């Protein structure tokens, strides 16, 4: 890295690591920020969707004639009006933009209307007549994998099977002193971005289309729109509006609404706006995968683990979406950060007539972490250790080899984060005290959970991103990137990196929202890759500009480039510390000499590898480590659990912006509390039971305690200024920490989340299960809860 050497900055960091204000926050407190639904143009039409009446049915015929005749209706479209590809998908292209002959879940769209007002569009939707022939419904992934289940696509419902194998589990179980075998279950989770899906599609002058909307993955949306309309990628422009939250949720959901609005706009030649109501959003959008997890561990009396046999089944819902990638992360991380020589893991995904499931913050880790960290506490109980001791005994250290055969050569800080979390919460003392406390109405508990997590996409896919830094003649700077800001602060971090490298203050930087026609395809802003990818690209771009500026500075002053530096908005001489020219003067000089003042930074992540057959490989180029401690109060009378205190420790490599890293931790933990205690999107026989926030409960300000965020910084050479990632790790540990705390308080272990009143009090869900009589026995055996002292 010769260039890096050239621009090596032997000065203290001025902006990196500080809690700078967000570059996009001013517009957000004044109401000026423009979210998708805030865009309006004259003569726009309003688009609406007719959705399926059944979770699974054949479409016999669709009659649109009454709807078409309604005054104010411009067009009514069905699948047969799509000129190009009728289906899309990131991995498997099988998701219908509009269902043609079959609907596979209740959220499937069947027809579209564009009309002059929302009321008329809605009325027209009600006038479309569809004749269906209902088909048998499969709503449970394990049922769906049986040979006689109704099949959704092709010839079978099982569409993913990832495998990891290491050592020999038969030998491992034979060496064990005892075996722990458990079944866990997790639920559907609604992303609950407060801003529902919205787009504005406008036909452009060159027979193309421009779409402005709250799109998370602009480049994949562009691909789908282009192939649906038979357009070149260059003819489709996707502009990101300010995003009102996404958490992984505004990917395919936005592709779908973008395709539909684009189709209506191209057919009518007019701008078309589409906005989902909350009900439409919840009905149609994808969710976090529910998993059924079978964990079997062999262990010795000293607490070491001799074998792990793991099987997980993910409910993929009606379409493939991101399931192949989500479950891949699960298979890689399913054993947790723990030594074990003999491992066999199988992760499956199956189609059902439920909402399809895809990316959500955590991406396959919250499910397995719940199981792993519950198992760890069960193991501790069995061998008479406390939860910290058992993790310190089994946890990875630098040089450890993972279940996939990858040697961890970076600084493995698992034990550091565990120790810090335990110290900050006085874990061991409280854990012991709670266990010994005499029973009263309110019991207290403390629980610990930790994890390791692969950074960025890993061997899942191509991992590269672009950021552009453009210096203006007056010294102001425009930055744009293919990495999108969804509220996590990507723009601010990239601005800080740019400002640091150019030695300027943050107020000079103006960040443009992502536009697919102005930056290179940078993949999706997922997998907590924003900082490491966009940030590295920003650093790369800014460094190139910096070199140009220093060279011009050398010409101007006659000093050697190596004696010059950019600091506090000035060109300075390092030796004399004298300011030689202002940044503005330098920028103007650069322009006058005809030097390039714009630079494209590109970052490609280090190599990863994966052998799908063997289930072995260098899955991720680096990992992050985190540990959380939850303290709860359990009301024995009602089963109500309150989280009283929370400590969240994360090694982020380097915090580019301390305040924003803390912000990610607070938000991630809050969402994790929802996952552990409150939230469940219930689907029965393909019919969702929650339609809006009055039924689907996310944590309010009363449900989330004050959270103590502890940032650990072990700088990693693969990231800009040593930074790694933080977005998702913060969301994957709260649920097991809480469940472990409930165990500490009550002696009851919850095997199925959320740990709501019924499960804590009765040990099972209070709703009717659909099974009666003889079948009831089976249910009792798989009770979602076991009591301390039970034979293990």
């Amino acid at each position, binding site marked *: 890295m010769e260039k890096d050497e050239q621009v090596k900055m032997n000065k203290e960091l001025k902006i990196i*690591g*500080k*809690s*700078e*204000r*967000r570059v*996009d*926050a*001013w*517009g*957000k*407190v*004044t*109401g*000026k*920020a*423009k*979210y998708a*639904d*805030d865009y309006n143009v004259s003569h726009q039409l309003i688009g609406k969707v007719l959705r399926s009446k059944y979770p699974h049915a054949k479409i016999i015929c669709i009659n649109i004639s009454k709807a078409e005749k309604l005054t104010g209706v411009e067009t009514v479209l069905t699948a047969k009006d799509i000129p190009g590809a009728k289906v899309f998908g990131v991995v498997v292209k099988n998701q219908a933009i509009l269902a043609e002959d079959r609907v596979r879940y209740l959220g499937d769209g069947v027809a579209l209307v564009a009309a002059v007002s929302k009321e008329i569009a809605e009325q027209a939707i009600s006038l479309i007549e569809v004749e269906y022939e209902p088909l048998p419904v499969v709503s449970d992934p394990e049922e769906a994998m049986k040979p006689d289940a109704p099949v959704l696509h092709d010839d079978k419902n099982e569409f993913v099977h990832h495998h990891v194998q290491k050592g020999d589990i038969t030998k491992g179980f034979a060496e064990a002193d005892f075996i722990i075998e458990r079944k866990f279950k997790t639920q559907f989770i609604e*992303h*609950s*971005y*407060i*801003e*529902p899906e919205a787009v504005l599609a406008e036909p452009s002058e060159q027979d193309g289309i421009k779409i402005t909307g709250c799109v998370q993955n602009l480049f994949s949306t562009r691909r789908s729109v282009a192939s649906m309309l038979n357009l070149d990628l260059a003819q489709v422009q996707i502009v990101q509006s*300010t*995003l*009102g*939250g*996404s*958490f992984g949720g505004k990917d395919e959901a936005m592709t779908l609404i973008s395709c539909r609005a684009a189709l209506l706009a191209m057919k009518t030649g007019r701008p078309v706006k589409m906005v989902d*109501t*909350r009900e439409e959003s919840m009905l149609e959008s994808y969710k976090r995968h529910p998993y059924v997890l079978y964990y079997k561990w062999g262990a010795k009396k000293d607490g070491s683990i001799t074998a792990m046999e793991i099987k997980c089944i993910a409910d993929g819902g009606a379409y493939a979406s991101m399931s192949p990638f989500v479950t891949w992360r699960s298979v890689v991380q399913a054993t947790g950060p723990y030594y074990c020589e003999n491992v066999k893991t199988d992760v499956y995904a199956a189609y059902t007539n439920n909402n399809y499931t895809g990316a959500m913050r955590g991406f396959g880790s919250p499910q397995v972490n719940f199981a792993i960290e519950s198992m760890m506490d069960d193991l501790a109980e069995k061998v008479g250790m406390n939860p910290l001791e058992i993790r310190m005994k089994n946890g990875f250290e630098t040089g450890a080899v993972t279940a996939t055969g990858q040697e961890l050569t970076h600084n493995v800080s698992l034990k550091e984060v565990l120790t810090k979390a335990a110290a900050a919460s006085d874990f061991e003392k409280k854990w012991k005290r709670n266990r010994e406390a005499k029973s009263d109405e309110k019991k207290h508990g403390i629980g610990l959970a930790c994890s390791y997590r692969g950074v960025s996409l890993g061997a899942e896919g191509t991992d590269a991103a672009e950021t552009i830094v453009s210096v203006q003649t007056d010294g102001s700077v425009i930055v744009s990137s293919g990495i999108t800001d*969804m*509220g*996590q*602060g990507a723009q601010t971090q990239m601005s800080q990196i740019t400002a640091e490298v150019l030695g300027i203050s943050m107020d000079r930087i103006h960040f443009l929202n992502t536009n697919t026609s102005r930056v290179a395809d940078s993949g999706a802003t997922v997998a907590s890759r924003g900082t490491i990818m966009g940030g590295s690209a920003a650093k790369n771009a800014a460094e190139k500009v910096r070199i140009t500026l220093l060279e011009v500075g050398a010409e101007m002053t006659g000093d050697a480039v190596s004696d010059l530096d950019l600091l506090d908005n000035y060109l300075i001489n390092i030796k004399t510390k004298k300011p030689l020219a202002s940044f503005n003067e330098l920028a103007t000089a650069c322009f006058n000499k005809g030097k390039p003042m714009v630079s494209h930074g590109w970052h490609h992540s280090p190599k990863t590898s994966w052998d799908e057959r063997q289930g072995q490989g260098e899955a991720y180029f680096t990992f992050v480590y985190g540990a959380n401690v939850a303290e709860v109060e359990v009301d024995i009378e009602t089963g109500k659990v309150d989280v009283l205190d929370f400590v969240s420790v994360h090694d982020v490599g380097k915090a580019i912006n*301390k*305040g*924003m890293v*803390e*912000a990610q*931790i*607070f*938000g*991630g*933990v*809050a*969402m994790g509390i929802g996952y552990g205690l409150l939230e469940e999107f219930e689907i029965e026989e393909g019919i969702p039971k929650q339609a*809006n*926030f*009055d039924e689907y409960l*996310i944590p*309010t*300000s*009363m449900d*989330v305690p*004050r*959270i103590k965020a502890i940032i650990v910084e072990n700088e990693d050479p693969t990231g800009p200024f040593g930074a790694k990632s933080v977005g998702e790790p913060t969301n994957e540990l709260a649920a097991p920490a809480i469940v472990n705390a409930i165990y500490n308080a009550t002696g009851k272990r919850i095997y199925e989340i959320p740990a709501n009143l019924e499960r804590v009090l009765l040990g099972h869900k209070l709703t009717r299960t659909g099974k009666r009589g003889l079948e009831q026995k089976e249910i009792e055996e798989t009770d979602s809860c076991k009591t301390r002292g039970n034979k293990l």
Partner: protein
Amino acid sequence: MKKVTIHTSVNHKHYELEIKPNLTLLSLLREELGLTGTKCGCEVGECGACTVLMNGKAVNSCLVLAPQIDGQEIVTVEELAIGNKLHPLQESFLNHDAVHCGFCTPGMLMSAKDLLDHNSNPTEEEIRTAISGNLCRCSGYQQIVDAIQNNNVSPLKG
């Protein structure tokens, strides 16, 4: 549907408006008056993104029918700053990093303003209660609570 005429004040400007009686205050603000700072998140009174002040009290504008504001005074987020001079509460939100995606922010600010206008020194509990009708999926609420509590001091830490 027969339209009705109302007289109202929005952000201290007087309006005579002819509207459909089933129009919500939220739609009136966003669609008729172009005041898009107030957000729509659920339309059933659960998320609080649409919170505005009606005669100084925080209300969910999606639950108020436009005819109900006849003769009343409405204040929205657009009215908090005076020109480029931010309201102290807005400054405090910026300095406490209480604004993430920002979609809940206008509603949060209005609920907070109602609280502080009636109680200049609220406890954490009072703040949490005051914003319990405002859902935020990004922040975990902590920085918002801090911003409201310390609205006169502005620490940018770190």
